[in-house]
């Protein structure tokens, strides 16, 4: 087994090395983190199901089975109108376009210089923001333990660096349009973002993962989001990929005092998806909200691992993940709450609720609480059930067909999460997506 995982790791690395051709790569070798990641990588292997954090999600096996890492996807090109078609209808936003993991400036619509938002590649960013980048790039993800973070850090060709200045309220959301296009061959994409949100600043971020083409796709994405004092960040991750999409994504959040971070993750399709959402509440009175919705069918496998680390007093976290599993799909939820010794007066709430619509669908759910402080309030709960037969009968008795009634109930179940979406155009798009999914 060890040899097999090592082989797959080496195959991935060689694929990525072959992709790296630009000068940006050599500029980034200056970053210490890259060296550390390279060293860590020599010791790390891809996970098997023996790894506690990967018990239910055999990503290595899936990659080995589905990918030919000797193949490169070739050059893909998009016209501005093709990109427009992938945008969120009606939404005025800045669009940051990634093609197979690489930021494409010409297809993006970026804020102007006046707008207190810097969007550059990481290597460009080093010129003016070296201190900030060195302080945060790969400093919050665990490159010593997490092999995917190590791969990303060691070999990422270039990252996007977004800095929002202090004291601004950014009116338009920033949409990261992450396109995997495997039309000409399987793809390995490593999008990577470092987002710094200045103090007293308010910003909305949307990551939209889009899958094009019929060959297998592997995405290893990392977003590191630094939330300074008093900042408010509203973050969305929308995943509607394909049956042959394999996705390991980490959202790593570092919050300072009095900050607010809200995350909403919606997953409607994919082959195997692993989302890591790690939030560190590293200041007093920091608040984190974590919402997730996974609506799965076919053989889709979606694993949400979340960690909220309360490091300072008076912080608050509230988490609600909901899932509907149909067909032979499988959901995994693992929610960790850490309350450090310093973090007195912490309030932490967690809930995971699931509905299984078929005999062959399954869910593995596991809450984990580790509390070192003594004056805290923490609750967690997980439920798994079938559809409410009484409600179903009620709807049927009004003339609504059983399937339509089921869809209505599931849309209602999902709506608790959908309602959290504060951007109305995005909410509309998600509602439409869910409607189509549940009514077919």
């Amino acid at each position, binding site marked *: 087994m060890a040899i097999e995982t090592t082989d797959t790791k080496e195959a991935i690395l060689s694929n990525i090395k072959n992709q790296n051709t630009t000068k940006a790569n050599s500029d980034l070798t200056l970053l210490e983190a890259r060296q550390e990641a390279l060293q860590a990588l020599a010791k790390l292997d891809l996970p098997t199901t023996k790894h506690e954090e990967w018990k239910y999600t055999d990503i290595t096996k899936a990659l080995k089975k589905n990918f030919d890492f000797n193949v490169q996807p070739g050059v893909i090109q998009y016209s501005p109108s093709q990109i427009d078609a992938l945008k969120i209808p009606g939404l005025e936003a800045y669009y940051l376009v990634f093609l197979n993991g690489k930021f494409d400036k010409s297809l993006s619509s970026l804020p102007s210089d006046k707008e207190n938002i810097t969007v550059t590649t990481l290597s460009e960013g080093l010129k003016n923001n070296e201190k900030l980048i060195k302080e945060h790039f790969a400093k919050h993800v665990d490159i010593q333990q997490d092999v995917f973070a190590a791969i990303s850090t060691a070999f990422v060709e270039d990252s996007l660096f977004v800095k929002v200045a202090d004291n601004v309220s950014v009116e338009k959301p920033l949409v990261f349009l992450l396109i995997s296009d495997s039309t000409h061959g399987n793809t390995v994409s490593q999008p990577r973002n470092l987002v710094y949100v200045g103090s007293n600043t308010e910003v909305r971020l949307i990551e939209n993962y889009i899958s094009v083409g019929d060959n297998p796709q592997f995405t290893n994405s990392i977003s590191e989001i630094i939330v300074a004092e008093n900042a408010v960040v509203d973050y969305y991750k929308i995943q509607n990929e394909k049956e042959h999409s394999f996705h390991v994504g980490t959202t790593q959040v570092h919050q300072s005092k009095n900050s607010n971070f809200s995350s909403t993750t919606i997953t409607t399709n994919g082959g195997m998806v692993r989302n890591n959402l790690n939030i560190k509440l590293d200041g007093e009175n920091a608040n984190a909200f974590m919402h997730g919705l996974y609506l799965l069918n076919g053989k889709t496998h979606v694993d949400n691992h979340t960690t909220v680390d309360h490091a300072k007093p008076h912080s608050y976290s509230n988490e609600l993940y909901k899932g509907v599993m149909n067909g032979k799909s499988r959901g995994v939820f693992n929610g960790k709450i850490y309350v450090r010794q310093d973090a007195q007066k912490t309030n932490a709430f967690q809930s995971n609720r699931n509905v299984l619509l078929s005999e062959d669908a399954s869910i593995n759910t596991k809450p984990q609480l580790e509390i070192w402080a003594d004056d805290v309030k923490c609750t967690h709960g997980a439920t798994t059930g079938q559809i409410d037969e*009484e409600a179903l009968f009620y709807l*049927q*008795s*009004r*003339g*609504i067909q*059983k399937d339509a009634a089921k869809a209505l109930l599931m849309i209602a*179940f999902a709506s608790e999460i959908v309602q959290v979406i504060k951007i109305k155009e995005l909410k509309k798009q998600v509602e439409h997506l869910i409607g189509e999914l549940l009514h077919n």
Partner: protein
Amino acid sequence: MLRIKNLKASVEGKEILKGINLEVKPGEVHAIMGPNGSGKSTLASVLAGREEYEITDGQIEFLGINLLELSPEERAREGVFLAFQYPVEIPGVTTTNFLKTAVNEIRKAKGLDPLDAVQFLTLMKEKMKLVNIDQSLLSRSLNEGFSGGEKKRNEIFQMAMLDPKLAILDETDSGLDIDALRIVSNGVNQLKRKDNATILITHYQRLLDYIVPDYVHVLYKGKIVKSGTKELALELEEKGYDWIKEEATVS
């Protein structure tokens, strides 16, 4: 309109209905009374098509169709409506949204075009007056956090929207104060026509002061043991159910 013959039904192997016979003609109001556990709500559920009941014998014919072969939604489309004793709370589905789906599903079954948003709202406004129900209530999640009276009014409002041929009101009076009872009854009375019929299931005579039945039947231990006119209900009010139980035991 409705012809029930020797209907027997069980749940989890226990026989609840032990041979019901009942005929309801268009324009009629029938009250089915009886002590707790006599099978009143079971009869209502069986008519609406609740699946956990097993029909072991007998027939239900509705407008010439064998009702027992139809799914709950097909029965609704044929014109059967059950006002629930305990209306289900469905978070996340607004009454408006749900009713629009229901009305249009029923219209589709009748070969009619679906109502557009404007037509639907016009119909809703008209029917809302019948039970004095507020628009804001209908924009909320279906029955969620509704008071008992609001839930029952919502049932009658749905009935008005769906315009059934046979309405079965299962203990609609339970949990209602006198004002709510008056509003609900008034709604039911206004919906009464020559070509539709109503079955009132109730424990108390009180409801029958407001909705006057043509026939009253007493259900006891899964059988109709006595039938009569509205005077029978008054007699029950006065004497309770014990004399019926005795009569039933003797016969």
